[in-house]
């Protein structure tokens, strides 16, 4: 059986681009499928301060442009396409079929780097209000809220960072967190506490988003006292972490309870010849630096797997 490619990489964020760079450099016949243009979640980040090699930080755009160019230098082909499912194994257990919205491809080895997307609050009208006051990206939509009041929800690094970024435009950020302390790193916590445009509302969850055509406010509940209240705001930014993009492999590879793909240290999934790397994988720290490391290992192991097939 001849296959279209040695390796197919699904998703062009930092994990996929690094896997592409390594696999390309090993002269393997490798193709990347990306439903948007390469860059991944980093494209929604204004400034990256914690990726090594860039004192003073680097813009999310520039970093990803460079990662892409470097992978292209080593012969990676990037094709625009959205993967909807995969059929592993083949009769001889030696190739996999990748189903796209507009066709099919076969390969010896698959590297899944589809990453993650913002987690929703799970409120009934939340999706309907996206673009009408609900946004998951302060960096993208902050400038539309010039002089307005917004609610940001969350307590991790992304919530703190995005709240700080929002203060460039808005007159006030209510940062709503369900606990009485932040998970985010100390540098960011300090910056938030020092910023007089940010008011933290502790021990509180959002129970409803109000407004028809556009957001007018949120309903809140204090989880310690059970006290209910309302807060008029023009925008709501849920920044409560990510969920994996793994629906298309449900039932194919093993997932953890959160839907993240389980792998071992070698990025091997429960199916031979299928690897996963980056945010889509079950792991403790989801960052560019860890995505890049995962991607390198996945490509290295994919190469080893190919050698053993021959």
């Amino acid at each position: 059986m001849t296959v279209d490619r040695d390796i197919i990489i699904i998703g062009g964020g930092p994990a996929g681009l690094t896997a592409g760079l390594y696999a390309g450099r090993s002269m393997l016949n490798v193709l990347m499928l990306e439903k948007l243009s390469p860059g991944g979640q980093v494209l929604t980040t204004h400034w990256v301060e914690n990726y090594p090699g860039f004192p003073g930080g680097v813009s999310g755009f520039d970093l990803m442009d460079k990662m892409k160019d470097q992978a292209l230098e080593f012969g990676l082909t990037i094709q625009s396409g959205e993967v909807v499912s995969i059929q592993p194994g083949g009769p001889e257990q030696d190739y996999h079929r990748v189903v796209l919205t507009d066709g099919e491809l076969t390969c010896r080895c698959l590297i899944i780097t589809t990453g993650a997307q913002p987690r929703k609050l799970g409120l009934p009208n939340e999706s309907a209000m996206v673009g009408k006051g609900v946004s998951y990206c302060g960096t993208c939509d902050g400038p539309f809220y010039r002089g307005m009041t917004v609610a940001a929800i969350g307590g991790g690094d992304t919530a703190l960072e995005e709240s700080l970024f929002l203060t460039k435009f808005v007159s006030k950020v209510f940062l709503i967190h369900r606990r009485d302390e932040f998970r985010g790193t100390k540098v960011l916590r300090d910056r938030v506490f020092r910023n007089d445009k940010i008011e933290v509302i502790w021990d509180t969850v959002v129970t409803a988003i109000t407004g028809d055509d556009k957001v007018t406010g949120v309903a809140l509940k204090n989880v310690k006292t059970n006290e209910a209240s309302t807060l008029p705001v023009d925008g709501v930014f849920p920044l409560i972490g990510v969920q994996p993009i793994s629906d298309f492999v449900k039932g194919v590879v093993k997932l953890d309870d959160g839907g993240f793909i389980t792998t071992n240290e070698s990025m091997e999934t429960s199916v031979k010849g299928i690897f996963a790397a980056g945010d889509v994988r079950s792991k403790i720290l989801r960052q560019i630096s860890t995505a890049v490391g995962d991607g390198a290992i996945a490509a290295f192991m994919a190469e080893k797997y190919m050698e053993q097939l021959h």
Partner: protein
Amino acid sequence: MSDALLHVNDENFDAEILKSNLPSLVDFWAAWCGPCRAIAPVVEELAKEYANKIKIAKLNVDENPKTAGQYGIRAIPTLILYKGGQIAEQITGAVSKTQIENAIKKVI
């Protein structure tokens, strides 16, 4: 930079989009928006593939606050499909080519 892709502004929006004989798709974007950059190549491809069937245009929200304000743009990228001067479909956020194509097929 394809010829099929049009750039519209506050001045010509009415003539080019609202009074257009063909249905149209307008990509509301800005230079500082990452996801806008992510879908830009997709919008360009669609402009080529659907030339003569739908008018595909981009509007920079920073340079054209009047039109962006008129349509209450609060998030970008926002893609609005117009037919006969009215909004027929609206998509917010960076979505896949298939999703945009499905919306296009509804209006052409």
